[in-house]
């Protein structure tokens, strides 16, 4: 299926915003997949949002869902 990836901050420097074809059915699988293709991500703190809702537990992904990947910001 095809999903939309939206990323922020430092993460957007290597993932950016893109349509991605995946065969992951859940957010946990997607995380593993993303960390495999973008190894930089594995060492970072980040959170996913599925269709603009923060992912707090493993959730099902459907075709054309949007997934946002957010790092924490500390600057002021």
């Amino acid at each position: 299926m095809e999903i939309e990836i939206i990323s922020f901050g430092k993460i957007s420097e290597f993932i950016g915003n893109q349509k991605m074809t995946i065969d992951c059915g859940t957010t946990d699988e997607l995380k593993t997949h993303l960390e495999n293709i973008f190894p930089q991500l594995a060492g970072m703190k980040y959170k996913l949002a599925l269709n603009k809702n923060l992912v707090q537990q493993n959730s099902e992904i459907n075709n054309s869902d949007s997934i946002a990947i957010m790092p924490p910001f500390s600057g002021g």
Partner: protein
Amino acid sequence: MNTERYQRQIILGGFGIESQQRLTEAKVLVIGAGGLGCPALQYLVAAGVGCIGIADHDVVELSNLQRQVLFGMDDIGLPKAEVAAKRLQQMNPETELILHPILVNRTNVIEIISGYDLIFDGTDNFESRYLINDACVLLKKPLVFAAVSGFEGQIAIFNVANEFDISTNYRDLFPVQPGANEVPNCAENGVLGVLPGIIGTMAAGEIIKLLTKIGKPLINKLLHYNLLSQEQYEINISPSDEYQKVTTEADLMNNNIENPIQSYLEIDAERMIELSKKDSTLIIDVRERHEFPRLNANTFQQVPMSEFDRFASSTIKADHIVLLCQHGIRSVAAAEKLHQKYGDTKRIYSLKGGIAKWRNHFLTF
């Protein structure tokens, strides 16, 4: 209250004298009078918030002036809280300003924030942000959070219940504080001066909305703003069960340990060479594979940072682990990761200054 001063907002439909009265009665604490704090303070004072606390322990530096618009050349070297208060008092003598020219830390945070109705976090580091968050959770204080990085900003409102009586806090977003060096700050990453101006002003708008109960404040929402594309992205925050909520002052203390006991040692190249002679020492180069100079693989095991978590989850036999990289920054992050896993059961070292500093010492291997 001088109603003429606030006339332009009092005449607004849905605002009126009642809202103005609410602002006059409000006590807001702004922590950090920097890039975010300056514009927020300006608009909160201008809007007629009755009492504003300014907490900042820093002095004005030349490199602040690009974004911290309350300060000028004559203020360099002077305490930010004092300079800001002087300017703000000139703008609006009706606002009572309270100065806290000290570092907010875990022993004074409760006392400082308890006198206010609403807290604005405009600090510039995770240690302060987690501490302020936890203190606001403990005291159930509404917290307006704003942070910037590069050309992007984040704003959220925590500890305010929505219509379903659900409230969230920063730990629902990011339960664990990132380690030092894990996320670059403005000093390392840079920030376009106008960005904190926009985000700080948006935060002031959210504070005014909360205080006057108008509009839809960002309760349980995280708003992302991108200056380059003018795009905004809003996500709904829900409670997480990944962390223990702060319920006592002891929790606050334990969650926010200051200057943690050095978990690893920063060493020079001489010490590294000494250690390398022991059988029980493992030296790890955490640079990525494309980086130069390449080191002797017999002595230096390469584990790039991008693969480090996977490596760290395996069991390391060596008792002494030396980490190094180009400048000694990533190796600190790696050292912290290993310390988290092994605690004091292994001795962990980071080569201070990295290969760049000790280049000649690496020729001998």
